[in-house]
């Protein structure tokens, strides 16, 4: 396919790897923000081809993975209602809530449907005027234009049996939170190309300046990632800390203004809890008051629900890059893509799922033994962030 195959050329990739080796004189730690980038890096073994000492930390940029347990539990509470058709991107269906997941609920008779686009959910609402159709509006800035359009179209066309359960997260506040952390080891970022396609990169300029970190807007194909890594290392080696754009063919500095207008027509910025990370101020979108009638949380009055992460799951430390899946006792043993404990194993973009798909650390060392008590541990209560962080230590 055009604009894909060209960026997977192994000869060009080898040239880029050689150039990275040539310019690298010191160890550097970089983070790729987006789960799609993590998938390519792990699948293609890009991290293993880098000079010794150059480390890729896999960032929190998987929307499925950072959706807080409370929101999943709210989704389950809404989806269980007989008057509801619950619609979602496919990845969210297997994300474990406190007691079950959407897929299991569907198997028990709930009307849960996978849609490719929120506009498909809107079509379902039009076709079923006597049912309530709810869309699980998760994602980063990339899905926000689509989710905002669905709400705005519902308002324009008077589709009142449509509502959205919003769990929108933003990249720059998460990067800032990571950089503020005393445990931070990230010296440079590959910013998520498609987030920047929508939003541009002006938000990243003050971050690069304040924290003195290079930020390279990077695409998703192997050559994009290698070039992004090369550009970030070149900045580090030269002592620069700027925002640069590797993904020139798709990203302009100002982003897509019409998409941004639509986002801010429907949403406003507010605090958001990230699964395994905790609450980050001004790190997500919520519906503006004028669109409150499309807010599923209000429509169905789903109250606060306690977070109960699995005690063996170190999702928080994985999401912040403090640990890798190979550090986890559950990885590959009691936590697999077929039966995930935590969100990073659910989505193909999650770090654990990416490692599992590439067969990393699965050399028969960890097999599920019936004698192992791990599977029977009772869930512990309390805040998810502290819980997973503690479990990680």
């Amino acid at each position, binding site marked *: 396919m055009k604009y894909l195959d060209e960026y997977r050329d192994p000869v060009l990739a080898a040239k880029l790897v050689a150039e990275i080796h040539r310019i690298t004189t010191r160890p550097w730690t970089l983070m790729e923000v*987006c789960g799609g980038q993590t998938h390519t890096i792990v699948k293609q073994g890009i991290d293993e081809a880098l000079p010794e000492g150059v480390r890729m930390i896999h960032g929190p940029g998987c929307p499925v993975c950072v959706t807080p347990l409370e929101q999943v539990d709210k989704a389950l509470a809404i989806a269980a209602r007989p008057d509801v058709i619950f619609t979602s991107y496919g990845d969210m269906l297997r994300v474990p809530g406190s007691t079950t997941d959407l897929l299991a609920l569907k198997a028990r008779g709930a009307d849960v449907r996978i849609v490719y686009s*929120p506009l498909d959910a809107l079509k379902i609402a039009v076709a079923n005027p006597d049912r309530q159709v709810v869309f699980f509006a998760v994602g980063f800035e990339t899905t926000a234009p689509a989710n905002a359009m669905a709400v705005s179209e519902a308002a324009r066309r008077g589709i009142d049996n449509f509502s959205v359960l919003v769990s929108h997260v933003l990249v720059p506040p998460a990067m800032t939170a990571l950089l503020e952390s005393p445990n931070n080891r990230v010296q440079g970022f590959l910013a998520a190309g498609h987030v920047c396609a929508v939003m541009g990169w002006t938000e990243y300029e003050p971050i690069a300046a304040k924290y003195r970190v290079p930020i390279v807007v990077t695409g998703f194909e192997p050559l994009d990632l*290698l070039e992004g890594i090369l550009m970030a290392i070149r900045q580090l080696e030269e002592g620069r800390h700027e925002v640069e754009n590797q993904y020139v063919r798709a990203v302009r500095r100002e982003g897509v203004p019409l998409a941004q207008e639509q986002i801010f027509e429907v949403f406003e910025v507010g605090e958001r809890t990230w699964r395994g990370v905790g609450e980050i101020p001004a790190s997500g979108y919520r519906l503006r008051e004028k669109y409150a009638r499309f807010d599923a949380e209000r429509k169905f009055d789903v109250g606060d629900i306690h977070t109960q992460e699995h005690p063996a799951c170190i999702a928080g430390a994985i999401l912040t890059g403090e640990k890798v899946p190979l550090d986890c006792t559950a990885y590959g043993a009691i936590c697999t893509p077929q039966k995930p404990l935590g969100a990073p194993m659910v989505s193909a973009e999650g770090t654990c799922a990416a490692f599992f798909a590439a067969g990393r650390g699965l050399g028969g060392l960890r097999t599920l033994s019936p004698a192992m008590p791990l599977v029977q541990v009772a869930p512990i209560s309390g805040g998810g962030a502290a819980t997973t962080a503690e479990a990680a230590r």
Partner: protein
Amino acid sequence: MCLGIPGRVVEIRDDAGLPMGKVDFGGVRKDACLAYIPEVQLGDYVIIHVGFAISRVDEEEALKTLEILATMGDLVRAELATMGPGMDEPAVVSDDGTPVSGVFGAPVTGAPGGPA
């Protein structure tokens, strides 16, 4: 869900006031909303994400990137030739440009860029 894929716009239409179109992904055609990229023309490449065009692919820039990458191997070889054997363990590049040994020790064996 989160992956954006480049495809070619093969149809543009108005769907009850919403600019929509069909986009071809190497033979598979899908509906997509084109509202955010009003300048899009038939035949343009766009990046589609959850059913929405979020960027028009700049053909000139796409080709430029590939050209730069294509010349890079020669630069690397030229640079290496000037280094001479002075370093403890100079990076060695094989005929296809793959580093086979070097200061970092780790040989690279066809890891990146395989068929995806």
